[in-house]
């Protein structure tokens, strides 16, 4: 499995402010990757580093095996939908498509026009008068019609209403189903990611807390509840991510790739929501041991 994005000790600093530090991760090819993290975790910085809008202060990053933003060939391989889906307010939809055609060698005119046609907007309309959802769709069209190998979307749905959000993600899923394109999508809305992503990276305080296939993650995390008990007494293959205790009872969210044999526990599966929240709210837990299918990188 090759990596679409590989970073090593990657860091970005603005003056004294560290936007991202010591970030080491490897995102496999052919996935729809969700990048989750609280605001200020460095998601946008990481993605802008990946498209070459920023250059790293420390460490290194390779995207599809090349240096981000390094020449037209590399630029052509990565499609980017920036945060708040910027477009030129004074240019019409048609003019935006023309821009795409002028600036990109692999521009797929038919794809772009048919997508705009589906959107049901007047192509003569100025981008400034489009609704947020339409503008996001236009930005997605511009990125997709470039026929990239990797599509990077930075919080594309954050500012959209639920309906527009669903339509946007629907479009994205159609694109993924049709083309063999890898997608990296950042969001703080876990429900959205659950719908479209098959791989998850959790970024907290610019560190990767967890990364792995969504199905593997769900199969290896459990919620245990039972009589109050010291978490230290658990078997060594069970790692506590989150714990809460009452006088009589303990509730733990653990990670293990072994069956849980202790009959004192009532064992329940976790949702992606639970899992992400547990990692986001307990960022300083020591990282569990590396496992074959479950790359935890610190």
């Amino acid at each position, binding site marked *: 499995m090759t990596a679409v994005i590989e970073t090593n000790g990657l860091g970005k600093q603005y003056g004294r402010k560290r936007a991202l530090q010591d970030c080491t991760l490897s995102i496999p090819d052919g996935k729809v990757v969700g990048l989750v993290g609280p605001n200020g975790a460095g998601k946008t910085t990481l993605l802008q580093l990946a498209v070459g809008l920023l250059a790293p202060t420390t460490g290194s990053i390779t995207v599809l095996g090349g240096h981000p933003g390094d020449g037209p060939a590399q630029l052509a391989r990565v499609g980017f939908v920036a945060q708040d889906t910027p477009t030129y307010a004074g240019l019409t939809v048609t003019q935006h498509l023309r821009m795409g055609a*002028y*600036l990109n060698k692999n521009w797929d005119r038919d794809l772009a026009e048919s997508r705009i046609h589906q959107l049901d907007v007047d192509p003569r309309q100025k981008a400034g008068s489009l609704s947020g959802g339409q503008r996001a769709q236009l930005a997605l069209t511009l990125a997709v019609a470039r026929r990239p190998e990797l599509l990077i979307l930075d919080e594309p749905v954050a500012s959209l209403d639920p309906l527009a959000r669903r339509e946007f993600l629907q479009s994205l899923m159609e694109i993924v189903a049709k083309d063999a394109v890898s997608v990296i999508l950042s969001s703080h809305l876990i429900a959205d990611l659950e719908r479209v992503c098959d791989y998850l990276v959790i970024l907290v305080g610019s560190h990767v807390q967890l990364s792995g296939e969504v199905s593997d993650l769900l199969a290896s995390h459990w919620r245990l509840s039972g009589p109050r008990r010291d978490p230290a007494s658990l078997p060594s293959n069970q790692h506590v991510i989150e714990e809460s205790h009452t006088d009589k009872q303990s509730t733990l969210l653990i990670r293990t790739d072994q069956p849980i044999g202790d009959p004192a526990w009532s064992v329940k599966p976790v949702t992606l929501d639970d899992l992400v929240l547990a990692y986001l709210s307990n960022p300083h837990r020591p990282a569990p041991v590396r496992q074959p299918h479950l790359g935890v990188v610190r």
Partner: protein
Amino acid sequence: MIRFTWMQFRVQALVALSGLAIIAIVLGLTGPNLVHLYDTSGITTCGARGDCSAIANGLLSHDRLLQDLGTVLLVVPALIGLFWGAPLVTREFETGTFRLVWTQGITRTHWMAIKLTIVGLASVAVAGLLSLMVTWWSSPLDRANPNQFSELFAERGIVAIGYAAFAFALGVTVGLLIRRTIPAMATTLVAYVIVRLGVTKLRPHFQVPITLHEKLATTAQGVVENVPGPGAATPPHLGDWVLSSNVLDASGQPFNPTKLNCSVLVTPGGTTPSPSSAASACLPRIREYSAGLRQVITYQPSNRYWTFQGYETAIFIGLALVLAGFCFWWIRRRLA
């Protein structure tokens, strides 16, 4: 990228073009009349009659309002810097579209190169055409007006091309550094005015001026007969740019009759003997002092006009190229 730049720039280009068209029509309608007035004013033969300045003043009183159009040439380069230069990059930052356009299939350097070339050439073309029209229109007046090195220097000829190129590059550079439109515009304006004034201060030194030492003619009584001014048969001629004109005495000191210790009023152009009896004793001293007087004039001859236009234009084009180079370096290395 050229077509995309044109797509974004064409409205501004059309505005500029219509402005130029309006000015062209106004000047085209009034210009021939000025040529006619010049031809019939008799200014070409005025030397014999000695009424040159009266005729010149008469000519220069025509179309005063339109003569002020020359001022447009001072303003237009600044406007280009403010409205074409400064927002070029800041608008992309303020609307976030830099994240759209700089992640398309062309590099940022390419983007910058095409933007600077297209809009820069348009700036130069607008200023050049405007200057050409104004220079043509006012040529009859300028032939009657000897002060071509005055403030008119910036409103004629080719210097406006340099000003426009520089103002545009300055606006882009400042925008790249400040990233916000209004502060970038304000900074561009201030920096532009400072540099323009600075180069204006430098202008007299573009070439070493010619220095004349003219002995003042005096009468037997030590009376200075007259001080030659521009327009006399000897240099400096009418139209030369006189930088300084001082009367010095034999020791090279500025003209200062009080050190003669005579109660005589001595002025270039005449002496008034005092009624005192000491006047006669003073006379030899006055005579001696007057005989040593000379006028020292430094000036730039009028035939250096186009050389000076060339130097000034070259300075500003050079500055513009330096700034453009900085823009490339910054957008590639620092803006990341």
